[in-house]
């Protein structure tokens, strides 16, 4: 989804007069007070009546450049389920190593309600009920709950925030989990600074004006004009999350600002922040915790020699190095594109973020003489990257790209169970930017040939006592094998895993088990069970019905909505195959074979297929469910839903055996 719209900040100078201003605080109309529901969304428990924000870059009292941000909102609350809008947490960040928190002041709040006699009243937020909470070294909150909430009340609050982190200009989210009647953001940016603004989501601005504010900024002897930009949106629907979607960031209507360049007002030095990829390449190369770490090859020389000893071809060297790095680190579950404290410290601590681990991997592979690049990407949770122009802050993850001949492999060493060349689901998100110390960077598609694949092969014999005995072989292939290994490793031993499996299946007894390739990460994981199942109490009736989907039957459609707003995103294709051979007792024949199915999604998007082959005293039944795409668009959604409907229907049908 490329709905990113570029709003140019080049001013014609003839912009309409922007008459944005905050709405008055402390007043309420009769209409707002008496509102019973929100006509445009009658399911809303609350609606934002008005919302206004303003951000301006200016000098602080301490002569430091800061962003001065103001927020003001008025919300109608219809019922108790909207009360959580009256509990507010204002986050403040400290993006420094020291104690440079953003500061908040002037929190005021008011609740308007009708008292027990139906008279309009209001009550103010008391400052003693505002609680500052230091959450961690880098995050604190101001928490407060507006007083006097009751059904039908209106709350209003505002505050000011001062941030020393002007390069991290405040994003404005037009959309939230409740609808909004109107939301407006006013931005003042002195000409010393240039930002790129981008609008995300499907919704359109109903107001967008730009004008020049003369001589609005001065620092020392320098002064300049400002761009005064106003963005407004009317009738904003609530954002409702759907199942199987990626980050809401990809779809939520919001406006982001990315610093392009700035001029130091005191010295006149112009600094390009992000302008073109070559600038970013240069900046990354120079960055101590990125390019700086990629130059630390020395750290790995002695470590890698024994790892690759005896390995002659490039691929086996690479695999050895990959396994070595996987085993050398424990991922601390933090993500980012920069090493936290340098690779040397991370290596000593055996712990680090993705960058510590994968920059180590790039270095180690390079030291082993392999052509390796670094790929910057954004995880699924973090949203899709903007490919129109460079936005370095969009990226939050780093992996390695190894090139051998004309083949390349994407590698992530944060998880010791990942096979060579397989990426974790979190990384499969549109595009990544490939970076190396000596070449310009470029985009690459992160869609990997990896798949989730299961095959089940069963060979069963129905016995005279009504029990079914036989073997079940299950191969978990590709990403499915990784997931299965993770599941098995949650147990202290394979025996405990099998015991657990056995205990979960009431009618099935595992007589013998064998699990192969548990530690051979690149091979399919094989589970082989000899089992006995109680299918019938006893075989004495003339006819027996048998559902061949007994192993894993789908009863309900995972897709319930009539239509979707956002695509279904599974991350990768999948395929399940099931082949059952059933041997019958001599005195039985098959009365009714199953009806065969062959249904496909349009444009080879997937299929459901069943097969049946009778033989003497036995039959083979097979089925295949295949989804060939990672992402299904909203247009494809009805077909996907219907395919599931057909699967469910056909899985109800039974095969009937009859006594001769």
């Amino acid at each position, binding site marked *: 989804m490329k709905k990113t719209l570029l709003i140019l900040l080049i001013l014609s100078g003839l912009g309409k007069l922007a008459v944005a201003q905050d709405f008055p605080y402390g007043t309420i109309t009769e209409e707002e007070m008496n509102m019973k529901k929100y006509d445009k969304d009658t399911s809303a428990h609350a609606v934002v009546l008005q919302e206004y924000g303003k951000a301006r870059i200016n000098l602080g009292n301490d002569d430091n450049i800061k962003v001065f941000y103001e927020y003001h909102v008025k919300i109608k609350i219809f019922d108790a389920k909207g009360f959580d809008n009256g509990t507010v947490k204002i986050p403040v960040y400290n993006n420094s190593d020291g104690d440079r928190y953003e500061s908040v002041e002037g929190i005021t709040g008011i609740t308007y309600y009708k008292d*027990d006699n139906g008279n309009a009243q209001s009550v103010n937020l008391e400052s003693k009920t505002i*609680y500052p909470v230091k959450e961690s070294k880098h995050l604190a909150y101001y928490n407060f709950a507006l007083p006097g*909430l009751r059904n039908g009340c209106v709350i209003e609050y505002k505050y000011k925030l001062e941030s020393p982190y002007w390069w991290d200009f405040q994003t404005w989210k037009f959309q939230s989990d409740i609808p909004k009647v109107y939301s407006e953001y006013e931005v003042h940016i002195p000409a010393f600074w240039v930002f790129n603004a981008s609008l995300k989501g499907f919704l359109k601005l109903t107001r967008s004006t730009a004008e020049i504010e003369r001589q609005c900024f001065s620092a020392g002897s320098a002064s300049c004009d400002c761009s005064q930009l106003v963005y407004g949106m009317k009738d904003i629907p609530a954002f409702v999350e759907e199942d199987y979607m990626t980050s809401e960031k990809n779809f939520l209507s919001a406006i982001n600002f990315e610093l392009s360049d700035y001029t130091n007002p005191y010295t006149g030095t112009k600094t390009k922040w992000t302008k073109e990829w070559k600038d970013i390449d240069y900046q990354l190369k120079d960055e101590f915790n990125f390019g700086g770490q990629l130059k630390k090859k020395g750290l790995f020389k002695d470590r890698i020699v024994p790892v690759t000893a005896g390995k002659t071809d490039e691929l086996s060297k690479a695999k050895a190095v990959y396994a070595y790095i996987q085993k050398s680190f424990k991922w601390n579950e933090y993500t980012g594109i920069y090493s936290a404290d340098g690779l040397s410290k991370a290596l000593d601590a055996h712990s680090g973020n993705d960058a510590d681990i994968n920059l180590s991997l790039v270095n180690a592979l390079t030291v082993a003489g392999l052509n390796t690049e670094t790929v910057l990407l954004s995880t699924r949770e973090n949203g899709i990257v903007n490919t129109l122009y460079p936005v370095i802050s969009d990226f939050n993850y780093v992996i390695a790209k190894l090139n051998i001949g004309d083949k390349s492999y994407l590698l992530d060493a944060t998880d010791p169970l990942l096979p060579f060349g397989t990426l974790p689901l979190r990384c499969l998100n549109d595009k990544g930017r490939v970076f190396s110390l000596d070449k310009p960077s470029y985009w690459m598609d992160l869609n990997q040939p990896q798949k989730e694949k299961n095959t089940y092969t069963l060979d069963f014999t129905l016995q005279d006592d009504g029990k079914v005995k036989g073997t079940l072989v299950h191969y978990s292939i590709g990403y499915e094998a990784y997931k299965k290994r993770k599941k098995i490793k949650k147990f202290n031993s394979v025996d405990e895993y099998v015991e657990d499996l*056995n205990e*979960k299946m009431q009618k099935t007894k595992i007589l013998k088990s064998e699990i192969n390739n548990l530690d051979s990460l690149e091979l399919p994981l094989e589970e082989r069970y000899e089992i006995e199942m109680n299918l019938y109490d006893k075989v004495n009736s003339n*006819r027996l019905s048998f559902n061949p989907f007994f192993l894993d039957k789908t*009863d309900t459609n995972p897709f319930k909505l009539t239509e979707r707003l956002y695509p279904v995103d599974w991350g990768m294709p999948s395929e399940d195959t099931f082949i059952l051979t059933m041997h019958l007792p001599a005195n039985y024949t098959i009365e009714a074979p199953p009806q065969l199915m062959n249904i496909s999604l349009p444009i080879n998007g997937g299929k459901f297929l069943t097969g049946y082959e009778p033989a003497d005293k036995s039959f083979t039944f097979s089925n295949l469910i295949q989804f060939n795409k990672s992402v299904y668009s909203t247009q494809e959604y009805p077909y996907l839903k219907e395919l599931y*409907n057909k699967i469910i*229907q056909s899985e109800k049908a*039974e095969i009937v055996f009859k006594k001769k």
Partner: protein
Amino acid sequence: MRPIIITFFLFAICTLAEAQQNFDASLIPKELLPYASSVVRDKEETVEVQGLDNTIYHIKEAVTILNKNGDDQAHIEIEHDKSRVIKYVKGVVYNEFGKQTAKFSESDFDDNSAWDGFSLFTDTRVKHYSPSVIQYPYTIAYEYELRLKQTLGLPDWDPTPEIGTAVEKSTFTFSCKPDFNIRYKENNITSKVTISKNLAGLKTFTWQAENLKAIKNEPYSPYSKNYLSSVQIAPQNFSYYGIGGSFTNWSELGKWIYDKLVADRQVLPAETIEHIKDITKDIADPKLKAKKIYEYMQYKTHYISVQLGIGGIQPFLAADVDKQNYGDCKALVNYTQALLKAVNIDSYYCVVKSGRAFKVGMPADFPDVEGDHIILCLPFKNDTTWADCTSQTNPFGYLGDFTDDRTVLACTPEGGKLMHTPKYTTENNLQSRKASFVINEAGELSGSMSTIFKGAEYDDRDYLLDEAKTERVKMLQKVYALNNMDIESLDLKQDKSFDPSTTETIKLRARDYASLTDGKYYFMLNPANRIEEPPRQVRNRLNSVYINRGHTQLDEITYSVPAGYHLEKEPLNVAIDKPFGKFTATLTLTGNKLLYKRHLQIIDGSYSKDTYQDLVDFYQSVVDADNYTVSLVKNP
């Protein structure tokens, strides 16, 4: 030269002390390894009461982590606040062979707000640390000391840690001056206490546990305190946030709570008192008066938790709740009491241990500060009524399954007393469903279905209240596993009387409900109330079977099916009768009317551990019956 010698001397002692313990992982007794991902090698907890405002709590522990699943046991978390101060913390990491590989101290810990996920504010913070070790097994040994500026909530001893951890040795020592009286309670302790006097002249009580195997998760287990070892200690004289007190029985403890924490916090503004008098002036029956006041409180307030200092156990002033319209459970009960007092209705502030999974009461034989929730009791003559003040929707007198059927401490001006909250019985907890459907030639299902919820199930649909139809439909599609369900109309009625009930009526349609294959119809007999999986089996079960709450389900569904068909298989006919439950399910076809009846009853109580397999079999029969597929074949 002298100082150096002293230093050396001290150093030598330290080394010796450290060297005494060998944390080589291979020394762990083999019988402790099954189901263990970590093993506590040695844990020593000591509690020393030095004064009423000064308790020293010292913990020293060495735990060996056998594989990745045990990493959580190496994670150290220490809660602290102004009255629970960390004096020091330090530790060492050893490799598989017991060789030291790393050291850590307080500066390696992160400090975060101990936010519980729902409070607006809490002043408790947590220091935490995880070692990063990639080679298993490894051992982490650490110790820390806390100073507790109180003696009311003295630390208990729970030597059995989480599931998956075995214990080689764990000891607990409590010491105090000879004149500091305590009572203690041993739960499932095999080696009894050793009482002696130490060198400093303090009384000491020591307990020890050895070679405890890792426990496995066994479904339907009783409350853990009923079968795991623990020791509780309660003081006689104590101080809490500077407030002194003394108790040896529930009466004295309840009186202290009432006098010191609640009594003077129930003053209301005159206009609120007037308003309350006004809205109740036409009601004569005190119970109905109280109902009116409770409903007023529900309408006016909502739940917000703020836990600050002694406010952790003391309610907000009633006047503050009156102004802010919010408070936590204590504050809202205290406020409601104040409102009731305005019309001279007596009520009790009751401390309860809340929870749905188990019903845990205050033990009559061991008065101690326990409980995590406050509810309201109204002692009407021959009609004791209970209420939870944190709900905006419960009918007056309805407690629900969070606080039902357990012993609570009522704190009154005359002293504390133990009372028991009402029980929702197997018969009370009812879900009764009636439906009448038509399945047409195309396999489409249509008709209406009506379900009544009572007892502890009364509030099962509360989350649908206040939602618009579109939202309700989305939510119900997740409740009913009825494929292609299209809800045409939905009605939810609540009877908020003293025997409350909720009635849900749905008109629905589901295309392709029955699939037509080779001239046969197949469909699920039980459309709305299937149990999909029985509980897991447990080999070598240790615990007895405990069913916390009974319930009854009645389903009666009629289907009109296309005429001229007969059943292909034997019709469903199941009847099981066990001490812990009953189940019947029948299917009859008369003409083109198919009648399905299902009756499931689960009876609460404790049963022997051998009953467990019976319970699994019982549920498997229910699962089989619930998944019965009707197949209809055309008459010849």
